[in-house]
């Protein structure tokens, strides 16, 4: 990208980077901070005077879209957040749920999309680092990381030039290395997630990182400052000039040609320091002298100090001269807005600060008393004793602007049957198309990526990437295990944001259930375009309705997450992409289900919660046009996502959980991208290249039957003597189950439909296509 020096955006940044308190705040400077005239007068009202430059900076980051949720708040209220296992819903650093025997799980997913486009490696590392801090801030030790990633196409297509494809490959490489570097060094396994590719993510890759931690319920920590006179302690890395306005300018505005100039706004991660910070914080919390703690993430010292005071209903006073600094001559503005990573702010019990400081000293980390909790609700920032900012904490943190932005349903796409996928003539052999599908980066094995992650450290991983539909980690302290899956389908979101969002919830929950675990709670990361566009706001509102309905129906309340708006470049928005993470409990870790077929002669069964359906052939073509097969084989994206029946999804979940608990099945794998044929193939590959001989009943078009992506379905395998038991369990829950074939060991995968073999071939040859599809797309093979 060409860097020019005369564009206004850069001028603004330069001015801010050297901002000193003597700079007089003008409406122009406020506008450069992204503060609207209305917001500016609100600031004047709260302060009962004009803000100085430091105060303006503080307001601008706290009231940025990223930190204040000003455009999403009115909609987020509609999400279900309560449940009998929910210990902490949205509003803290992470959601917390009760997982039994006195243990709780803290988990949350967060985006780091914009930084990852500007600087893929550091953007991804700090995304992982930030979410890990959110977890251990709660007093929970992180035990797993998942990453939900979206990139542009890796190979040149009609929509993507070779130059763009090469850039997408570089972004992918940087992001993967970043995720790997941080998690591996920090010592928490990266156990799962998903990766998908669509042209719309080329200039807006999505990097959504989820972290999970566990704690004893009584050991949880919250970010509420309490007790006037209690010391405020700064711990961790020193403060530098990096990441200033990372949240406000980078994550709260869309990209233009000048985006590369925002590289200095990207934070830099150091997993080694974070590992020390984790161990030191856990040890300090054990002393009993810590009253409250919050990490410094977006908006750094500003956000952590005013939020802790606001939540605790107190005031806070900070002396900036005491803040450990990496560089000399930093202004109050820069110190307050720096987003240097690996820092925490904590409140200790008065008189016991030395116990806390000693722990951080042992771990070789900076820790200094920088202020104290005060009565009265004011956030006072001093530099060498002079007040440089004085703002009521609660209005700053909680009374920011809230917008009910205009919404408009986009004009209906005018489609006819001609725009939809046309099924191949009856009797057509589909093996070549099947191979093409298996090699598509979205479907192909992600081993090349996941082998760069340490998936096993801490020896709790019962099912790592690709082994089961969900990642499963055991709790050494109990008989239980936790299962986690992330899902989201942007294509479906673009065609119907509400139904797309419902599918994301249903698929994540189904994946958790296919590992044998009962889904209990959800976290969400809502990736959308600019909220200032009425169409985007409409998509957002629809997606919220879909999420709410699905989470309610499946019994998985939303416990937290984040919203990422402004995912657009030069006016082009990404597909609306809500990413859902669902957590489940497996009562007996020994009963974890994996996707791989096992013994020769095992019976393969198809479970269908909706019990088949009667769509007209036109409707079948319409929903099939939104499938991965339609995209890869015919380059068609049209129609509607498959209709969703939440009741059917719930029944299927219940059956899968029951089958696992009763030990009746050998494997389980849900049907999703690529439909039944891909699901069967993956179970073969994961079963040491087992074979399968399938005779599929039905009267639909073969492509619809083999590659259709309708939900509420899964393939299980069972020993012959267990089949009647499987059928009985399915029947009890109202789920249709039918035998469709047998596991073989003859290296052949064969799917017969309407009396003909429509897909067949040696398993090892199909495996090769699937196993190396991603590397070939990346031009590494």
């Amino acid at each position: 990208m060409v860097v020019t020096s005369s564009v206004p955006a850069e001028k603004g940044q330069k001015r801010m980077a050297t901002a000193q308190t003597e700079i007089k705040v003008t409406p122009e400077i406020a506008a450069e901070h992204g503060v609207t005239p209305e917001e500016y007068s609100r600031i004047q009202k709260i302060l009962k005077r004009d803000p100085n430059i430091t105060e303006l900076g503080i307001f601008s980051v706290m009231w940025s879209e990223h930190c204040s949720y000003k455009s999403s708040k009115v909609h987020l209220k509609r999400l279900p957040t309560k449940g009998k296992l929910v210990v902490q819903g949205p509003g803290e650093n992470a959601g917390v749920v009760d997982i039994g025997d006195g243990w709780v799980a803290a988990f949350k997913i967060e985006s780091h999309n914009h930084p990852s486009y500007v600087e893929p490696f550091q953007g991804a590392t700090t995304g992982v680092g930030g979410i890990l801090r959110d977890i251990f801030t709660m007093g929970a030790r992180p035990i797993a990381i998942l990453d939900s990633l979206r990139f542009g196409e890796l190979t040149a297509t009609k929509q993507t030039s070779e130059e763009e494809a090469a850039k997408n490959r570089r972004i992918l490489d940087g992001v993967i290395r970043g995720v790997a570097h941080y998690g591996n060094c920090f010592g928490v396994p990266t156990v799962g997630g998903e990766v998908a590719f669509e042209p719309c993510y080329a200039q807006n890759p999505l990097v959504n990182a989820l972290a999970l931690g566990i704690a004893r319920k009584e050991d949880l920590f919250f970010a509420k400052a309490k007790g006037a006179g209690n010391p405020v302690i700064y711990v961790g890395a020193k403060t530098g000039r990096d990441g200033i306005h990372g949240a406000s300018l980078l994550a709260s505005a869309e990209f233009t040609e000048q985006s590369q100039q925002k590289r200095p706004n990207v934070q830099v991660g150091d997993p080694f320091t974070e590992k020390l910070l984790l161990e030191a914080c856990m040890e300090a919390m054990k002393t009993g002298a810590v009253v409250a703690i919050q990490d410094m993430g977006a908006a750094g010292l500003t956000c952590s100090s005013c939020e802790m005071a606001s939540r605790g209903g107190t005031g806070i006073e900070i002396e900036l001269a005491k803040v450990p600094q990496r560089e000399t001559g930093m202004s109050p503005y820069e110190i307050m807005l720096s987003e240097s990573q690996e820092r925490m702010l904590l409140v200790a019990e008065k008189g016991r600060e030395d116990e806390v400081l000693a722990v951080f000293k042992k771990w070789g980390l900076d820790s200094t008393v920088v202020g104290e909790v005060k009565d009265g609700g004011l956030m006072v920032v001093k530099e060498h004793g002079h007040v440089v900012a004085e703002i009521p904490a609660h209005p700053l943190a909680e009374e920011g602007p809230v917008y009910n932005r205009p919404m408009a349903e986009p004009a209906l796409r005018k489609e006819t049957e001609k725009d939809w996928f046309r099924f191949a003539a009856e009797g057509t052999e589909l093996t070549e198309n099947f191979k093409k599908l298996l090699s598509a980066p979205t479907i192909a094995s992600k081993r090349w990526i996941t082998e760069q992650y340490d998936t096993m450290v801490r020896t709790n991983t019962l099912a790592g990437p690709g082994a089961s539909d969900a990642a499963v980690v055991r709790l050494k302290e109990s008989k239980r295990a936790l299962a986690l899956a992330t899902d989201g389908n942007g294509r479906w979101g673009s065609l119907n944001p509400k139904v797309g969002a419902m599918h994301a919830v249903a698929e994540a929950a189904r994946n958790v259930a296919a590992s044998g675990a009962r889904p209990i709670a959800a976290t969400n990361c809502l990736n959308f375009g600019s909220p200032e566009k009425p169409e985007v706001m409409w998509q957002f509102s629809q997606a919220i309705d879909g999420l709410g309905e699905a989470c309610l129906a499946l019994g998985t309340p939303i416990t937290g997450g984040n919203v990422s708006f402004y995912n657009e470049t030069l006016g082009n928005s990404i597909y609306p992409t809500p990413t859902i993470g669902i957590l489940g409990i497996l009562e007996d870790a020994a009963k974890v289900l994996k996707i791989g077929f096992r013994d020769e002669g095992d019976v393969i069964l198809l479970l269908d919660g909706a019990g088949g359906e009667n769509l007209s052939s036109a409707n079948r073509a319409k929903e099939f046009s939104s499938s991965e097969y339609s995209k890869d084989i015919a380059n068609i994206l049209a129609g509607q996502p498959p209709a969703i029946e939440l009741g059917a999804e719930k029944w299927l979940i219940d059956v899968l959980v029951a089958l696992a608990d009763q030990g009746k099945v050998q494997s389980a794998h849900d049907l999703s991208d690529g439909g039944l044929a891909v699901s069967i193939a993956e179970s073969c590959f994961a079963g040491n290249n087992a074979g399968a001989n399938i005779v599929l009943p039905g009267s639909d078009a073969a492509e619809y039957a083999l590659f259709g992506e309708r939900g509420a379905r899964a393939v299980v395998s069972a020993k012959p003597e267990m089949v009647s038991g499987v059928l009985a369990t399915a029947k009890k829950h109202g789920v249709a189950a039918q035998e469709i074939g047998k596991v073989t060991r003859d290296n052949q995968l064969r799917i017969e439909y309407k009396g003909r073999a429509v897909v067949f071939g040696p398993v090892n040859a199909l495996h090769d296509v699937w196993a190396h599809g991603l590397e070939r797309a990346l031009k590494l093979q």
Partner: protein
Amino acid sequence: MKFGVVVFPGSNCDHDAYHALGHVLQKPVEFIWHQSEDLQNCDAIILPGGFAYGDYLRTGAIARFSPVMKSVEKFAAGGAMVLGICNGFQILLEAGLLPGAMMRNVGLRYICRHVHIRVEETDTSFTHTAKKGQILRIPIAHNDGNYTCDEATLAELQTNGQVLFRYTTPDGKDDTAGNPNGSKGNIAGICNRGRNVAGLMPHPERAVESALDSEDGLVIFRSMVEALVGAGKAFA
């Protein structure tokens, strides 16, 4: 009688080694802080995997100067057992307790997956309960496991039977196809001339329970336990 697991800042497989010895094999084990020169009367020391001191500069390059390493060197010189796993192996190389050095993996990427290694020598405290030629399926997880040394050292390692483990294919063939990182001579683990200090890149502590997909790593820890018992060190 007990094992000691050293904790450097940035160690992250310390708890895994502790779990393998303390919970799976139910033997006494203690953590030893890197600032301490007191090995707390341990009879065998494990340097665990991780990123000691962030592995800045070079893997293991800073950790070797930790106070605890002075004691570990004396401990080893006295003939006691020291096992370095992954980062621990790298630290032993930097400390000069084992010969050779580590380079970045061929392909310049971190690799985490199960590999196969063959037990080459069974006359050490780390391998004596294994069979010569036994194939173990154990995970690796590293950036810098590309072992190298000069030709004279390699010849010496071979003559003295100091190569304890080699990467092989699943059926035990010496083949570059089984070598994940480009290491010289497919070397996965070695010992010193005194045969009391050993290092390996694969993580035996990650292969100690069937739930973790392999129990093949147990043979190494069991060998160490048996060796201590044989030396008259009764476990308390």
